[in-house]
């Protein structure tokens, strides 16, 4: 290279060719107005769609997101399934990674195109999305959809018997998760704990699910037994209101809380194993005696926790087996017999005494129980079915569903014939129908309202339909027609109804004139509700216990108007499910403990 490199000196002058071209420079007035459609700017939170699960706050590695209570003027819902808290973002911490958006189960938290904020005040960078930038609603940019979200919205499918297989026997329909499936399903949970509030028993759901996710099934079982002594039963048949409020359920399928509980409990195959794993701490006997009437869920729960706390507990049960309605009211394809036996066996191993075949009022008087014990818990449930209130109801082959189920579960024989009509739309009706279907009957369900109004679980309804049960909605029975002998049922007449919207109430079925139809049947199963039977309590006590429309009135510790008598289960609460009964039993334990141990001091 020569010292004087002419080409090398002149070539850069070609840069002058840019002279006069349009500049790249943006005018000041358009600067900052054109961010991309996916730009990650400030957060915007739809305050009404947000449920306050706090997942954004958990994923934030900068601890930039706090969950705070907003002022009353924002009308933040404080319902169950909504924590009432909303995220607040510290922009002195945020790094705009948008993981909070990708883990938001509801999709309420999004980022906007807005990013420009300067201030001399360092304390002004604490924003509550949606409150401080209401205009952000129209500038949403980085959002999450079900596809892009990091949440897993699809439940791990539960393996089941085929519908046509099922009707052949009473084998359990649901097969349960195996370990791999359970871990995968448990890891879908975001541990927000919104579910615990709707659970009548307030089970520690996020904790035991997390224990399963981490592979510690034993810990999970221990956590479950903390306030539920019949978890396997719950794991199979619970009405699981928890899953309705699951944060994942807002945009997807709820975490299978019930099936996970079932998985955890099924790890312990025998009652000895349960005892070994749960290994509860049993306190020294304190000398108090508690009598419990009815070995249903509420009674057994009370018995278990009282026994753990050192009380001397005796349970009086009229029937051959314990479990109450869960034993006699639930078909065996949902809750096998040995499952309940195992759980009750465990309770007995802990020291609960159960006197079976002892009906209070006949085998032993209420008075005796009352006098012998320091406290009495009544968990008698609703055994007496409601009448249909139509002509011909008392004919042979017209049977209440609870009675029918009790007979079947008690291994008694009741021939339903070829054609069966079930009246009602609750779980009992569906159970009755499905059991009848297992006896090779052609089953029709008549229900006053629409299918979507049925109080039964949708899974149950679907299961019934899979098994060939025909559901006839908007049909009101008018009368039952007897055959020539006048003793047996021959047919049922019903009238079709239309739904009339009513203000402030759910739509009401109104019969359509002249739409009466008659179908021939062999058996009619009525399932429109039950009530309690207090005839065993002698009059002097009945008068002391306050009743309201057939239900015993209690305070929040299940204490009745007689301080020594506590009550729980269907006879007290309206929800009529096992988990509420368990919760009643659990609360009663605290009440009894407070009453007896306080008086001692």
């Amino acid at each position, binding site marked *: 290279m020569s010292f004087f490199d002419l080409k090398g000196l002149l070539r850069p002058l070609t840069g002058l060719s840019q002279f006069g071209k349009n500049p790249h420079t943006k005018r000041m007035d358009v600067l900052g107005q054109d961010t991309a459609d996916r730009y990650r700017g400030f957060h915007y939170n739809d305050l009404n769609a947000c449920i*306050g*699960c*706090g997942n954004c*706050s*958990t994923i934030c590695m900068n601890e930039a997101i*706090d*969950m*705070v*209570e907003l002022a009353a003027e924002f009308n933040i819902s404080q319902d169950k399934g909504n*924590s*009432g*808290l909303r995220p*607040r973002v*510290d922009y*002195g911490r945020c790094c705009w990674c948008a993981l909070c958006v990708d883990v938001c189960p509801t999709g309420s938290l999004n980022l906007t195109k807005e990013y420009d904020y300067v201030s001399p005040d*360092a*304390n002004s960078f*604490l924003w509550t999305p949606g409150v401080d930038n209401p205009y952000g609603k129209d500038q949403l940019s980085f959002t999450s959809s079900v596809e892009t979200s990091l949440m897993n919205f699809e439940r791990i499918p539960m393996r089941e018997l085929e519908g046509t297989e099922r009707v052949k026997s009473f084998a359990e329909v649901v097969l349960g998760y195996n370990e791999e499936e359970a871990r995968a399903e448990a890891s879908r949970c*975001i*541990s*927000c*704990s*919104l579910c*615990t*509030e709707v659970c009548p028993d*307030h089970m*520690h759901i*996020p*904790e*035991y699910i*997390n*224990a399963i996710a*981490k592979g510690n099934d034993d*810990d999970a079982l*221990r*956590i479950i037994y*903390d306030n539920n002594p019949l978890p396997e039963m719950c794991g199979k048949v619970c009405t699981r209101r928890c899953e309705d409020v699951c944060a994942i359920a807002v945009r997807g399928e709820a975490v299978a809380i019930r099936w996970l509980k079932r998985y955890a409990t099924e790890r312990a195959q025998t009652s000895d194993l349960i005892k070994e794993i749960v290994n509860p701490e049993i306190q020294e006997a304190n000398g108090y005696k508690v009598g419990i009437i009815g070995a249903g869920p509420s009674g057994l729960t009370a018995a278990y926790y009282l026994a753990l706390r050192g009380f001397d507990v005796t349970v009086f049960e009229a029937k051959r087996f314990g479990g109450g309605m869960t034993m006699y009211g639930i078909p065996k394809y949902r809750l096998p017999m040995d499952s309940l036996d195992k759980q009750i066996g465990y309770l007995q191993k802990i020291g609960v005494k159960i006197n079976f075949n002892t009906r209070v009022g006949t085998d032993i008087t209420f008075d005796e129980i009352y006098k012998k014990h320091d406290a009495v818990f009544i968990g008698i449930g609703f055994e007496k079915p409601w009448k249909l209130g139509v002509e011909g109801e008392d004919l042979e082959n017209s049977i209440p569903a609870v009675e029918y189920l009790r007979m079947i579960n008690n291994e008694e024989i009741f021939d339903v014939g070829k054609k069966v009509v079930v009246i009602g739309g609750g779980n009992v009706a569906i159970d009755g129908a499905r059991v009848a279907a297992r006896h090779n009957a052609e089953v029709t369900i008549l229900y006053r309202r629409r299918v979507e109004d049925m109080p039964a679980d949708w899974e149950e309804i679907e299961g019934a339909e899979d098994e060939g049960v025909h559901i006839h909605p908007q049909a009101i029975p008018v009368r039952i027609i007897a055959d020539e002998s006048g003793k047996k049922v021959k047919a049922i007449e019903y009238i079709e109804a239309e739904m009339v919207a009513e203000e402030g109430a759910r739509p009401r079925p109104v019969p359509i004139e002249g739409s009466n139809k008659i179908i021939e049947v062999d058996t009619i199963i009525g399932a429109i509700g039950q009530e309690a039977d207090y005839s065993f309590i002698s009059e002097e006590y009945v008068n002391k216990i306050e009743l309201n429309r057939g239900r015993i009135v209690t305070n929040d510790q299940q204490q009745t108007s007689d301080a020594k008598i506590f009550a729980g289960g269907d006879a007290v609460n309206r929800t009529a499910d096992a988990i509420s009964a368990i919760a009643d039993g659990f609360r009663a334990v605290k009440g009894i403990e407070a009453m007896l141990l306080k008086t001692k001091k």
Partner: protein
Amino acid sequence: MGTTYSKEEILAQQLQTAFEHLITEVVRKDTVFAFATKEQVSSILLYAKEKLGYISFVHLSCVDWLESGEFELVYIIWSPETKINLFVKTRLDRENPSMENTDMIWRQINTYQREIREMFGVEFPGFVGEKEFILEDWEDAPPMRRDFDTLEYVNDTFFEREGREDKQDVRERIAKRSGEEIPDFAKKYSRE
């Protein structure tokens, strides 16, 4: 024709022939681990460099296994011919950790050793390098050790902006609202 060995297996065999009691593991494609004793490391590195063609030094990393009371030094070397990453791993006692100086084999090891000495407190007797590398006037425990709690240090040393004290925990709030009592043994499974 006998069984054909993959290039990773051949390397593992070569190392095992050259060094007695050396445990090797073919982990995956292009990755071979050799678990060596502290004394073996420099001879393995030299052997691999001179005889096997692992001329490129990639990385020296230290892992703190607090639970078992050990530091693990990982030397990663790479051969342009086989394209295999060879991990030479060795464990040091966590009390007074010291390791032979190997910066005459590869010059960059000097930098790594300075870092590891500063961050973990592992001594490399006999090597020349300024004491301070990344930190300045550091008086606390070597910060990359797992028992050094950075958050605690931050809370002691630095300030935090005020105004966020009203934050609430969702779990606690729900439990309080519903009257749920979470037993202590379950709390470790609650959300952090």
